[in-house]
């Protein structure tokens, strides 16, 4: 349906942004270690975060509702949720690169439902993804 097309478009857009970033030789500054990976002196550190909320389309909600009855993988949800998660991590990486941080350690990704029901009568369904971590700048000297 139309929703699927729209979501396919934003997914492709994200994929091409990620690819452009990789091709430009940018590093991968995110990790979930609890300590800085280098023993160099740390110049500054700060908490950074990025978040997004996404929702499936009505059509997908309906399909999801059916699938709930029979069980099995819900592909339409798959797409939206993986989009949200990839997007927050991508945004965070961009943020780190732009602000000149060397790495972001202890990255956590959390998911939460911001509306009551995922499927059913509620006309809006939203999921929120938040990624946060400690951004670090090493001293250059």
């Amino acid at each position, binding site marked *: 349906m139309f929703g699927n097309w729209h979501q396919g478009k934003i997914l492709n857009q994200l994929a091409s942004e990620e690819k452009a970033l990789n091709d430009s030789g940018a590093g991968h500054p995110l990790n979930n270690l609890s300590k800085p990976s280098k023993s160099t002196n740390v110049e500054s550190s700060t*908490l950074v975060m990025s978040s997004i909320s996404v929702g499936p389309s009505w059509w997908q909600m309906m399909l999801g509702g059916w699938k709930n009855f029979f069980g099995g993988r819900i592909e339409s949800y798959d797409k939206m949720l993986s989009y949200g998660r990839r997007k927050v991590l991508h945004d965070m990486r961009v943020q780190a690169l732009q602000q000149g941080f060397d790495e972001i350690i202890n990255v956590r990704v959390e998911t939460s439902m911001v509306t009551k029901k995922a499927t059913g009568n509620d006309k809006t369904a939203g999921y929120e993804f938040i990624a946060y971590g400690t951004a670090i700048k090493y001293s250059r000297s």
Partner: protein
Amino acid sequence: MSQGMHLSNTETIPGKLITASYGLVQGSTVRAKNAFKDFGAGLKNMVGGELKAYTELLQESRNEALQRMMMDAQSRGANAIVNVRFATSAVSGGAAELFAYGTAVTVQ
């Protein structure tokens, strides 16, 4: 965002030494979504994808929760908060609670 206060979600502030600890500090806020924005998000929900109204609302609220947590820490005389964690819960259909907590410490 942080007025001279160090925030980190690791157990120490990288490159700094913790000299005192003041225990758990927290900040929370409950936000209801605006009826108009909700309507807009509902329309957006027809096709799915990013719900910008919610994204902004939750970011705003989370910053508020962070501010409250920092005020709590400041009132105890701390200058940093380590091991910051976020939690979100939907308290009822139209409202979300955003919650931030961490350990207030003094670093050198």
